């Protein structure tokens, strides 16, 4: 079983079955550090897993999710690499060890399992969930417009055929309410890092309003440090700022919901691409992308550890 994660190719894209099987191997390989939490089921009945990296006790936690938009394959692949990196670095890398001695890390690698399976079987360019919309032939809801933060505003669509359809009501999607229920029940999540691609951006609240968050200055400074850390490895340049000012108005997003629910360190990452491939980023770029993202994640996680609230 140990050979499963050892021989697993981190430099290729994998199906959901392969990722879930790999998770089983990771649990066996690092039983004292890693556990799997079943946080819910997708619309089509697939299990939704979060991996908990913990040295014990009920510590404050950092939440990381990848793959809420299913066609952004580099994000799930980065999630897999990151999980292995966290597990294998504990007790080896002093910074990561220090983080895990003070905080738990919870990582959801496939946030939109139905959409991800659909990208492998039927439509590589699928973004949304796979839920049926009453009164429409169009399927799916944008799970990053479905959160209860400015829900239904003009930075989302009321048309079920749109890629940014917000859904019938806030948290209508099991992929969203599973996360909401988990985080609210946990009650001690201090950071929410939601990983997307592409555009090379680091975004923070707000997306639904031009109002600045009370922690705007700190979030900006941390974003700057994080972007610098990321660029230090391969020179990948990120822009950063509030979602609404940096890219466009977006209503009902995960990071805005997190911030409004008391999670100060709420960021959205938009990973590589340089603009040549979009969602079809070649697999040879998975590891460089994951490596540079790791430096960024470490910057945020160290800050969270050093600035308890």
């Amino acid at each position, binding site marked *: 079983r140990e050979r499963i994660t050892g021989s697993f*190719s981190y*430099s*290729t*894209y*994998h199906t959901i079955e392969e990722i879930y099987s790999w998770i089983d191997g990771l649990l066996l390989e690092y039983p004292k550090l890693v556990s799997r939490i079943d946080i819910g089921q997708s619309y089509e009945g697939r299990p939704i897993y979060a991996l908990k990296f913990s040295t014990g006790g009920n510590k404050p936690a950092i939440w990381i999710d990848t793959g809420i938009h299913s066609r952004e394959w580099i994000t799930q692949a980065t999630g897999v690499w990151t999980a292995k990196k966290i597990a294998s670095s504990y007790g080896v890398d002093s910074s990561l060890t220090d983080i895990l001695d003070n905080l738990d890390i919870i990582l959801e690698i496939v946030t939109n399992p139905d959409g991800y399976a659909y990208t492998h*079987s*039927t*439509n*590589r*360019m699928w973004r949304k969930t796979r839920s049926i919309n009453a009164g429409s032939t169009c399927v799916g809801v944008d799970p990053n417009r479905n959160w209860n933060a400015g829900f239904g505003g003009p930075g989302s669509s009321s*048309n079920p*055929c749109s*890629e940014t359809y917000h859904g019938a009501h806030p948290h209508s999607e099991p992929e969203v309410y599973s996360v909401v229920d988990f985080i609210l029940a946990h009650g001690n999540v201090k950071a929410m890092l939601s990983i997307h691609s*592409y*555009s090379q951006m680091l975004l923070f609240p707000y997306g639904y309003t031009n109002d600045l968050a009370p922690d705007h200055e700190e979030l900006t400074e941390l974003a700057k440090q994080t972007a610098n850390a990321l660029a230090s490895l391969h020179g990948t340049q990120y822009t950063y700022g509030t979602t609404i000012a940096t*890219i*466009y108005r977006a209503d009902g997003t995960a990071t805005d919901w997190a911030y409004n629910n008391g999670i100060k360190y709420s960021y959205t990452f938009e990973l590589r691409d340089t*603009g*040549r*491939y*979009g*969602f*079809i980023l*070649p*697999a040879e770029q998975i590891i460089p992308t994951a490596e540079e993202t790791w430096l960024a994640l470490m910057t945020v996680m160290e800050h969270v550890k050093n600035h308890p609230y």
Partner: protein
Amino acid sequence: QKTFVGDQVLRAHAKDNAQLDVLRELEAMKHLQVDFWRGPSRPNLPVDIRVPNAVLQQVKVFLESNSIDYSIMIEDVQELLDQEHQDIQSATL
């Protein structure tokens, strides 16, 4: 399985807010079935649009007639997807 043979991804550059509005009009034309990979947001940010093969000329004419600069980011989406699929299969083997 949905294929993307002959689909292209165009990268458009809007010079100003008026051109951004034109791109938003394009986004609203559902019958064209264009897929905005990066939506129109700000004049200094590129807009990436996957355009089905069947409406390529129509969309290019629309962009050109509105004086919106664009380049072809991906010549044939399916070629890249085939390569991706092949890479996955050989990695699995």
